[in-house]
């Protein structure tokens, strides 16, 4: 049997059939016959590939070259040029839908992926991240080559500007503008930094992106270096991500050996190299000035801006610093054009955003959606809603810097402005779904506990203020809240927001202020009625034994403090003065005769 050289997949979905896919197949077979390639080519028919607007679709493998809107007449050219000559037919390749090119690969999971759009994660879960050949085969480093061949640095920057891409680290600063500032600074010594110091609890967008497709980040950085005139790039990644680090090392080594890093990249005049620096996992080192201090070997503490890193950054030199997700967008912007990129998303926020969906939701995981998708679509369509028939209470975005949005905000569109207006932030991509079993005071306490312990300790509002907020919240959850506590939290929170040195401090009160705003009644119940409606604050629970108690004595035996009294076969009673709310009686009762409220 002859070894097959190519596999050609033809979409056999209803739309494509209507668009002559059957005729196309005949034409293809004839053309193959003509070039004596029939033996060496396999033709497959596939079900709908979900790219109906571009149909009929024809895919040539290896290489994943996708041809769209092909006609029977095109088959001769495709066979002659591509299958026989090795040169794909450029005019027929589906270009704009670059990101969809490999989308059919994750088909079959429509609920989860149907509303997603994968740009940043376009190769994640598809290619072998440790093999540069896989990346090259999916047009890897072509954006870099394009920039080096036909674009000046100014043109690259203008393309990034045109794309409308904004920083994915959370603040949403226009990326093109940042590049422009850095490029315009005088001097030959400039740096490019990738901020991979992902630290929000429960967020792992960057880790996944690097582990799944490290070369994309590298390619973005090399293009960035070319655009701003830097010769050196640094990947700052936390040491807790050993696999991501290992894959980056493999990727950098492979890129060097292919002449994609180092002197005279791809034969051009541009030289650039990358280095990995490990962070020790301080949350604050995600703040750009603290990160730069950390690279310089100092304690990771932010400093006041201005000057911004684009003017005076690493070692006092102009420095372009973007986060992983931002960098991963760059090859797409360059290859497919800023104009195309800017068609995705909303008026002010372009492209897609990756979220780490977690909490009380069916499908936890990593999702990438176009800007403008609503929270409801993410929670219910992609996330599959709340498990166990529980009631939705809130969705928390932006991690410890973000806020909790209740049901009435579910139709908020995902973009920087809408989320801010609703009282939360885009953040770096944490998204936690909260159901009725979660106490909002407790969740606010969880986040402030995090920021409090991760505060660098430099500025007073964050160092001292978050501690006091945590103390007040702890008191409230333990049933020792006092009238006036809410006002104190608001007063401290507003001061910390406005007076702190860096973004960490300025956003630290957000979880508290947003829960006070949207769930004030829960705070008031805790303080005035000593009640936690979610039943999470143990100290506020009251256990009582109901009339259906059969007097088995199980609870009495289980109680560690001897707070339960009662004779056998008679209803038992809990002595509330002794009860420590441990919940043992509730656990052991086989008759549901212990109530917890």
């Amino acid at each position: 049997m002859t070894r097959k050289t190519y596999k050609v997949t033809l979409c056999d979905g209803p739309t494509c059939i209507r668009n002559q896919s059957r005729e196309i197949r005949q034409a293809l077979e004839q053309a193959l016959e003509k070039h004596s390639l029939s033996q060496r080519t396999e033709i497959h028919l596939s079900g709908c590939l979900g790219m109906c607007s571009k149909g009929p679709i024809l895919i040539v493998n290896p290489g994943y070259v996708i041809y769209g809107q092909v006609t029977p007449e095109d088959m001769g050219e495709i066979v002659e040029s591509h299958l026989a000559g090795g040169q794909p037919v450029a005019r027929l390749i589906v270009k704009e839908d670059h990101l969809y090119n490999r989308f059919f690969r994750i088909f079959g999971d429509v609920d989860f992926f149907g509303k997603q759009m994968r740009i940043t994660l376009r190769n994640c879960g598809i290619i072998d991240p440790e093999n540069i050949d896989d990346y090259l085969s999916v047009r890897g480093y072509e954006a870099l080559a394009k920039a080096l061949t036909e674009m000046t640095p100014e043109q690259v920057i203008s393309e990034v500007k045109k794309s409308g891409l904004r920083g994915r680290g959370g603040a949403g600063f226009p990326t093109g503008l940042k590049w422009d500032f850095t490029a315009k600074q005088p001097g030959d010594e400039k740096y490019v930094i990738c901020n991979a110091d992902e630290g929000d609890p429960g967020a792992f967008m960057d880790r996944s992106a690097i582990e799944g497709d490290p070369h994309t980040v590298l390619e973005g950085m090399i293009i960035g270096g070319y655009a701003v005139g830097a010769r050196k790039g640094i990947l700052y990644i936390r040491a807790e991500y050993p696999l991501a680090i290992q894959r980056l090392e493999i990727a950098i080594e492979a890129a060097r050996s292919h002449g994609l890093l180092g002197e005279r990249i791809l034969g051009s005049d541009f030289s650039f190299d990358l280095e990995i620096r490990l962070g020790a996992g301080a949350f604050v080192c995600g703040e750009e000035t603290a990160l730069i201090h950390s690279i310089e070997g100092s304690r990771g503490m932010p400093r006041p801006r201005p000057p911004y890193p684009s003017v005076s950054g690493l070692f006092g030199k102009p420095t372009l610093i973007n986060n992983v997700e931002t960098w991963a967008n760059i090859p797409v912007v360059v290859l497919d054009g800023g104009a195309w990129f800017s068609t995705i998303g909303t008026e002010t926020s372009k492209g897609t955003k990756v979220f780490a969906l977690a909490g009380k939701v069916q499908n936890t995981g990593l999702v990438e959606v176009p800007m403008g998708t609503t929270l409801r679509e993410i929670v219910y369509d992609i996330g599959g809603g709340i498990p166990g028939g529980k009631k939705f209470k809130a969705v928390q975005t932006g991690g410890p810097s973000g806020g909790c949005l209740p049901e009435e905000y579910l139709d908020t569109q995902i973009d920087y402005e809408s989320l801010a207006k609703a009282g939360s932030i885009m953040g770096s991509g944490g998204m936690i779904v909260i159901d009725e079993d979660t106490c909002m005071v407790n969740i606010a306490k969880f986040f402030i506990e995090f920021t409090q312990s991760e505060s660098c300790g430099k500025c007073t509002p964050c160092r001292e203020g978050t501690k006091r907020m945590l103390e007040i919240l702890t008191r409230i959850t333990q049933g020792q809240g006092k009238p006036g506590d809410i006002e104190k939290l608001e007063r401290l929170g507003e001061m910390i927001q406005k007076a702190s040195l860096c973004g960490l401090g300025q956003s630290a009160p957000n979880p508290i202020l947003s829960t006070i705003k949207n769930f004030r009644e829960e705070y008031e119940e805790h303080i005035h009625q000593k009640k936690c409606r979610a039943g999470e604050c143990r100290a506020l629970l009251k256990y009582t034994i109901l009339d259906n108690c059969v007097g088995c004595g199980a609870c009495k035996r289980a109680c560690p403090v001897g707070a339960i009294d009662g004779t056998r076969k008679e209803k038992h009673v809990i002595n509330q003065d002794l009860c420590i709310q441990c919940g043992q009686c509730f656990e052991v009762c086989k008759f549901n005769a212990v109530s917890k409220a």
Partner: protein
Amino acid sequence: MVSPIDMIKKKRAEAVSRIVSKGYLSTKRVYVGMATCEIAAGSKEVMAVFKDAMAKGLTDVYLSQKGCAGRCNLEPTVEVVEEGKIPVKYGKVTPERAREIVDRHLKKGEVIREWTI
């Protein structure tokens, strides 16, 4: 002078032929998720089962690792791709399930519906 774009196209062609020479055009391609999350869920053991099967004579299969596709609650994931067919994704794959996937899907072509995502 060769332009960077020409160089990268050449590199891509070479990369493709290297991938092909590793058996990419086999009837079935098996991808095992190997990100930190997947490894934590047990994908290394799953990968070992497939490697072992290939060492013991399973042919016409191309085995590769991949990153995380985002299905955290269903990891480890294994994907079986056959050209022209909708790819089959298995979730919560254990070494036992992996052995069955080898026996039933890869050898006999039977898609094990109840484990797919």
